[in-house]
């Protein structure tokens, strides 16, 4: 098929499409649904009680920072699938991580020995909550991101993992409060970092031009 024939075919099979809302709006829509899900899970796990020490800055500041990181990463993820958008994906990812991990570092007391932090086996429950609880959020987010352009699949997926990981971390910390932020920093931070790295590598399998074209361009009749 030559290029003129392709143009004719594409025009002939043209279907109206609704322009995607701006990245900030799409991120907000996803966040509303995700927050409702995480909130419902947290309420179910705590029987509706507020976590102990919620008034303490060492408790609420990392939660607020994690939520802020979620907002930043979500907006960055949706912006990364819009051609011509000037958002810096890597910069956004680093900023989100700094906001969250910085708050954890700032509110840590650094009294626990490293061995005690590393051997906090009860933290595997938090890891399971972050990873397992994050799966539905990730599926929904990936489905929304796949409506965009797979310009930088690894970066888009890394931002998506940061978005989901930090929000699931909020749910985990709300449901299973920690006595020490050092443990949260190492275990939750490590889990989210691992998710981000895996996503950065696997992103190219999920966000591909081939899939985008196949979904939106009908095969020749």
């Amino acid at each position, binding site marked *: *098929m*030559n*290029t003129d024939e*392709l*143009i*004719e075919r*594409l*025009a*002939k099979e*043209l*279907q*109206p*499409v*609704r*322009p*995607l809302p*701006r990245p900030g709006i799409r991120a907000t829509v996803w966040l509303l649904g995700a927050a409702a899900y995480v909130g419902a899970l947290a309420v179910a796990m705590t029987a509706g009680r507020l976590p102990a020490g919620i008034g303490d800055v060492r408790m609420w500041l990392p939660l607020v920072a994690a939520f802020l990181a979620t907002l930043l990463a979500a907006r960055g993820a949706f912006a990364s*699938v*819009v*051609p*011509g*958008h000037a958002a810096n994906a890597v910069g956004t990812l680093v900023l989100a991580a700094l906001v969250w991990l910085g708050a954890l570092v700032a509110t840590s007391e650094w009294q626990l020995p490293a061995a005690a932090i590393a051997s906090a086996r009860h933290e595997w429950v938090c890891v399971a909550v972050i990873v397992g609880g994050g799966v539905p959020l990730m599926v929904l987010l990936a489905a929304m991101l796949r*409506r*965009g*352009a797979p*310009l930088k699949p690894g970066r888009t997926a890394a931002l998506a993992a940061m978005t989901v990981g930090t929000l699931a971390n909020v749910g985990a910390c709300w449901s299973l409060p920690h006595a020490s932020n050092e443990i949260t920093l190492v275990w939750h931070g490590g889990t989210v970092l691992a998710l981000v790295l895996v996503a950065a590598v696997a992103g190219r399998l999920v966000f591909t*031009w081939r899939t*985008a*074209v196949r*979904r*939106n*361009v009908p095969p020749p009749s």
Partner: protein
Amino acid sequence: MSDFTPRDPLGQLLRAAQQGDAAAYTELLRLVTPRIRQIVRRQRGFAGRAETEDLVQDVLLSLHAVRATYDPARPFVPWLLAIVRNRLADGARRYGRAARREVRVDENDVTFPEPEANLDVEALADAAALRDAVRALPEGQRQAIELLKLEELSLKEAAAMTGTSTGALKVATHRALATLRRTLRVKQS
């Protein structure tokens, strides 16, 4: 004021295309295709005409697939260029991977490393001399050469046809080739 003004006629066309206007879409694609082709040629100067058109079509298909991502309030050209650059980078990666997998065979001047396997082609240029040399072979060797090398039968088929064993046919072929090589070398010298 937004960027979607009469100063951005391509953006207007794509906006109309998003609403299903096929004529506007055709016009848009016809307007942008030469520009895309120009960018492809500039960045992939070594590409042939077919490869250039493949890349142009790749970009057009990608543009079509993600046309919903165009925000009419934003300028059209940066949106298009982001897609073009991305698809060209993908194309370059594909080209690099293919080049690493390929083995250039046109520089190989031998078929097998052993010198005996590489007959002097000029010595065989005289078809009549070769025909005469084959005719001069002993009956068994001539038959083996004709069946296995000229008619390209398998060893089993040739053995069934001649009533000899495959081993005997191999020996006869080997001796025939040696005789032919010797005969032709003598004739050439």
